[in-house]
Structures are given as C-alpha cells and as structure tokens.
C-alpha cells in the first residue's frame, strides 16, 4: 500500500496518549475557568439587587471570553487529534450541544447588552441566568451521556437522538450546575468583600455541600454503568486508587467547608474547589482510560497518524504555556477586589 510505505502515517501511542492528556488538561482549564463565570450566572438569582449584579458581572467582564476560548480549543483539539471521536460525539450529543451553544449565545451577549439598555435590563439578566444554568446543565448531561456509553457502528454514531437523556445523565447535569455554583461562590469570596462576600460564603457552603453530595452520587453510580468501570475500580491495580480516592476527596471537602467559614481565608476556598474539580477529573480519567468514547472506542482507535498529530502537538507545547502566560498577565492586571461603591461617588 502506498500509505504504509510513507513514514509518518502510523499511529504512535505515546503521542496519542499525550494528546489525550493535553485535551484533558484543556477541558479541565475550561471547566474551572468558565465554571466560575457560568457559576456567577447561576448565583445571580441570589443577588437580586442591580448594584450587586453589576458587581458580580464586573468581576469577570475582562476575562470571560478568554475563558470560553478553552471550549473552542476543546472542540477544535478533539477534531484535530481524534476526528473520529469528534465525528461520533457531536451527533451522539447533538441535543445537549445545541442547547449549550444557544445558552452560551444568550449569556455571552448579556455581558455587553445589559449595559446598553435599562428597559430590557431584566430580560438580559434573565438571559444571563437562564443561559448560564442551561449551559452548565447541558455540559453535565454531555458528560453523563459520554460516561454511560455511546452506541457506535464502524466510524459513526449509531444510537438514537434521545440516548443522551437518562437518570444518570440528568444527575451529572445537576451535579455540574452545583459544582459551577460552588466555583462561582468561591471566586466571589476572592474578588469581593463586605456583604456580597459574606453572602458568597453562605452560598459556598450550600453549594459546596451539594457538590460533595453529587460527587458521591455520581461516583457510586458510575461503576455500575458498565462492566469495565467496575473492574477498573474494584480490581487490582485500580483498587489501589479506589481506596485512597474517597479519603482524598473527603479531606479536601472538609478543609474547603471549614475554609469557607474562616473569615480571613479569601483565596483558599477557591483553590480548594479547584482541587476538588481536579480530583473529579482524575476519577473520570481512571474510569475512561484507555477509551476516548466508552465503551468501544479507544484513544488509539480514534487517533490520527503521527504526521497529523505531531504538527499540532509541537505547536501546542510552545503555544499553551505562552497562552497561560498572557492569560495570567490579564488576570494579574485586573487583580484585587472589585469595589461596587466607588463608581457611585
């Protein structure tokens, strides 16, 4: 065959796994970054006053679209390195993805539109709330639908267009909404003070408890979805991870809940909630590896040949640190508390 004769046309495992790791990191960064700004939208109903709402939005206005760019990288990166997985997942998760995209339209434009009108302010606030909740819920649904397994025939999706909707995927959807609200609350503790901060602490405790409960529920349900998950978690060597995992998550949870109530802890709750999300990601990784789409499509099945993956990989290794650098710079420029009162004097 001509293609076999050309070098660079084979699939190289280390590169495929490195790509999978890179994508997982990109998705994690997306989840925590957009997580806190979607979280603010979810928390909006608890801050009915316009002054507080302005403040909440101001804490993320300079950075939100950088945060959402990681979602574009997630989609684009999947297409680049694992086009077969992208081609299967998009039709499989068709409805949740469309809902998510439309929801992101509403909440994204709300950032700009709500400053441009008084008459329509309440509608754009509603768009911001609704958009944030639906986007978070859809992302959770998509995660659940992926975890519970996707019907594949050859290189295409072969299930129905309601397969994504199950009690498990709904559970994941609610879990993500709660988790993003937690991230939003801990972000607010960091970026505000006074009354808004103390309310954020209370909301942090409520959504923190909810998030921990949902993590427990999803973790308990996952091993029973599919035989593979059970064996990965409850047989050696997986068992060595299974035993410490709840202990670590429990320790982080308790520290975080205590920190939320500690008056002078302003950064710690946010960092601990990031850690909590990181542990969830490790857990998901253990459940899914070596598959990219459970139960049948492995990372190697979906990978593109060396020449395609390496081209992008080299670039990503140079560019992602650079991106993190200037993103950090932008956050640093807008560091510190956002004070609601100054503009009113």
């Amino acid at each position, binding site marked *: 065959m001509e293609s076999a004769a050309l070098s660079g046309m084979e699939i190289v495992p280390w590169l495929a796994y490195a790509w999978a790791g890179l994508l997982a990191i990109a998705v994690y960064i997306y989840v925590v970054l957009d997580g806190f700004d979607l979280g603010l939208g979810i928390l909006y109903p608890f801050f009915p006053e316009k002054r507080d709402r302005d403040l909440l939005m101001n804490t993320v206005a300079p950075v939100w679209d950088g945060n959402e760019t990681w979602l574009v990288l997630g989609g684009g990166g999947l297409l680049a390195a694992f086009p077969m997985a*992208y081609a299967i997942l998009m039709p499989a998760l068709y409805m949740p993805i469309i809902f998510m995209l439309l929801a992101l339209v509403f909440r*994204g434009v709300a950032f700009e539109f709500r400053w441009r009108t008084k008459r329509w302010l309440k509608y754009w606030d509603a768009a911001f709330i609704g958009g944030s909740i639906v986007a978070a819920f859809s992302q959770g649904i998509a995660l659940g639908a992926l975890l519970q397994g996707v019907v594949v025939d050859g290189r295409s999706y072969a299930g129905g267009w309601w397969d994504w909707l199950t009690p498990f995927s709904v559970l994941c959807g609610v879990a993500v909404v709660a988790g993003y609200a937690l991230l939003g609350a801990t972000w607010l503790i960091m970026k505000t003070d006074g009354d808004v901060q103390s309310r954020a602490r209370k909301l942090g405790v409520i959504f923190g408890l909810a998030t921990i409960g949902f993590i427990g529920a999803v973790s308990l349900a996952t091993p029973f979805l599919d035989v593979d998950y059970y064996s990965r978690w409850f047989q050696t060597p997986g068992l060595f991870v299974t035993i410490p995992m709840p202990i670590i998550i429990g320790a982080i949870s308790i520290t975080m809940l205590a920190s939320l109530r500690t008056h002078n802890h302003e950064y710690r709750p946010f960092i601990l909630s990031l850690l909590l999300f990181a542990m969830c990601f490790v857990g998901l990784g253990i459940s899914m590896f070596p598959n990219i789409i459970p139960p049948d499509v492995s990372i190697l099945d979906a990978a593109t040949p060396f020449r395609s993956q390496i081209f992008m990989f080299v670039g990503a290794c140079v560019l992602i640190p650079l*991106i993190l650098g200037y993103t950090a710079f932008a956050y640093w420029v807008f560091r510190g508390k956002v004070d609601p009162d100054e503009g009113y004097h």
Partner: protein
Amino acid sequence: MLIMMFEGFDAIILARIQFAFTVAFHFIFPAFTIGLASYLAVLNGLYMWKKDETYLRLFKFWIKIFAVTFAMGVVSGITMAYQFGTNWSVFSDRAGPVIGPLMAYEVLTAFFLEAGFLGIMLFGRDRVGPKLHMFACLMVAFGTALSATWILSVNSWMHTPQGHIIGENGQFLPVNWLEIIFNPSFPYRLSHTLTASYLTTAFIVGGVGAWHLLKGRKDNPGVKTMFSMAMWMIAFTAPLQIFLGDLHGLNTLEHQPVKVMAMEGHYESHPDGAPLCLFGIPDDGAQELKHAVCIPKVSSLILKHDLNAPMDGLDTIPDEDQPPVAIVFWSFRIMVGIGFIMLGVALLGLWTRFRGKLYDSKLLHRAMLIMGPSGLVAVLAGWITTEVGRQPYTVHGLMRTSESASPLDAPAVGASLLAFIVVYFFVFGAGVFYILRLMKKPPQADEQGLSSSSEGPIRTSGITPAQQVQRQTEMDEVKE
C-alpha cells in the same frame, strides 16, 4: 409535535441550510471586527503620536461598538467549532487529520491572543499605561487577521486540496503541511477576503460619518476625521479589491473551471470566444440561460485576455457534478455590482475632496449612507458564490456533500435549525439595534470609553463600562 413537520425533508438539505445560516451570521461579525480592530489600533497609534484628542474620542466611540460586535462574533463563533461535527460528522472524520490541526492552530495562535488582550484593550488603558495598552490593541488587531488567515487556509484547501493522501479508512492524511497551508487558492482568497473586511469597515465608518454630516454636524472634529479617514481608505481599497477579485477569478478558472462556468452562466461551450452575460435566468433543468443579455466575446477577453479564446461550458460536465447555477450566477453579480458601485463612490469621494467639498457634498454623504452596510452584503454574496460554486463537493473533486453529513434524522436537524433561526434573529437583532443606537450619537468631546476616567488612583471599580454607560443609556432612553 411541531418538529415532526420536518419528517418529509431531506436531512442533508436541512444540515446545509443550518450550516450556511450559522456560518453566514457568524461571518458578518468578523468581517466587521477584523477591519475595526485595525482601525482602532490606528486611531490609538495616531493619538499617541499626534496627541490629538480627536483620535482618542474616536477610539472611545468605536470601541463600544467593537465590544458589542466582538461579543456577538465570539458567541456565534463558538457555535461554529461544533457545527462541523453536528452537521458534517463524516466530513469531520475524514478531513479532520488535515483541517483539524489548522483550526486548532487558529484557536491557539489567534483566538487566545484576541481574547487574552481584549480585556486590556477594552478596560485596561489606565491600569497598564499607554504603551502596553497600545500593544494590546495591536495584538487584538493582529489576532483577528491571523484568525482569518488560518480559517481561510482551511477553506481554501477544501477548494484546491493538495499535500495529502487518502488513507485506507478514507481519511485525508497530511503529507506536506506547507503544500496544504499554501494551497493554490489560499493567497488569493486571503488577500481578497482581508481586503473585503477592511473595505466593509471603511464603508461602515464612512456611512456613520456621512449620517452625522447629513445631520449638520460639520463642526464636530470626530465626525470629519472619521469620514475623511474612511474615504481615504475606500479610495485605496475599492480599486485594489477589484484587482484582487480579478486575480482570484483567474485562479478559480485554473483550478475550479466549473465554478466559473456557473458564475458566467455558460451552459454551452464557446469554441471561438465566450460572451459576458450581464443578465439571464439560469435554468439547470433545460441547461440554458434564458432571457440572456450578453456582450459577445467579452468573457473570453476578461478571463483569457483574448477575444477569441475558446471556453468550455457546463455541457462538458455531467449534470451530477454541476453546482446549482442560479445561486452562483446571481450572488456573483451582486458582489461584482456592489464592488463597482463602491469604486464609483471612491472616485466621487476623491473628486469632492479635490474640490474641497468633502464635508459639504450631500450627494456623496447620501451615497455613503446608503452604501454603509454594502460591504457586508458583498462579503456574503462573494462567499455564497465561492461555496455554492464548489458544490456538489465539500472537498473539491474528492468528497461529495452528500457523503459528508452526520447520521441524523431530519426532525433533529430541522428543530435545531428553527431554534438557531429564532435565537439568532432575536439576539443579534437586539445587538444590531444597540450598535445602531451607539452609532446614532456623534462622538463627543467628553466621549466615555469603556475604561475608568483617569482621575484619582487606579482602581478596580473602573474596569467595566458599568455606571457611565448605563447613565448614558438611561438618558438616551428617556429622550426616545
């Protein structure tokens, strides 16, 4: 159920409509923001150089419009990252190894650059100082152009594919990245599209200036400056664009002759010089251009630089390999027509400037006002010409549109299409309304930007448009 009404439709047609709709809507925003980002960088640079407050005022005037447009570009763009998979999953799987990395490079080099520096550009002038703020403006402008470069490379590869092989599993596999990126139609498409974006922006800026001049605001230095700058830009880019379009057309003739046949309405071959048809009703069924109004041999003159050069027609192409001629034929005429009217306005602008009547000529101002949004129409028409002209293929000559679609049922695609149409018209309609309202007010001496006023210490509270903009908005709405 309502969505069941889509049962009778063809899922591929619906997917095509959905993709065309979402990408066309998206295209409008970057077509404006690519040019506007550069214009803002120029204004900011001129302000730093000449210390003339007028430029700062204009910067603050246009940056509010830029922020709203950019947000709409971002959210409609996120949709596009997923539309490839939701509508064209088979295409994504097969072409992914080639186009995926290029699109990922677009995200990594361009989207992050824009988004990373946008916050500083919008809100950070007082926090980072003028030099770093200028740098942020340049990075945003550079990012928008770089993004166009990558995505047009992808698009061009779909028109003139090279540098790949087709693997055993049917995937297009990259062999030579330089050949893929710099495929034959890429330089022409890139220069034609970027120039289109600058021209589009110049007409919008000039149109806004013309509106204020017609309202008698000749004494407002901001109005005069924006109008004058726009007219200079048009004077250079309108003729340049026609020249680049001609080159692009010749490149298309070389690599995609069938598209040119459709653009020209040439169903028949012309062995001794092909006519230029100004008007006609293309009829694919009868394979003839009805009611044609043609100038003999001129098409051969334009395309081959020889009155008697023979040109093949669609009669040499099997029916199933032809694009739908009417759409290509008409969208091409709309684009070219607008291009020549733009040239006319550019010449009128030069003439009135030469006579010293630039700020007095009602004729020029009315023409500019009417032509304000014409660039957007031309951009869409041109894009329809090239995309529909590639049909029935997604990857020219190699992969058909009919084999590219996702395995979805018509009701699913139809329902989401309906949702996109409703949401986009509503949301982006509101956005356009807000933009027009911003344009309606002339730039003021105390023009408020998005950043905090510079009095007092640098403080975080001033980082957003919040209070000032809202106070202004309230005043506007009371006035209405």
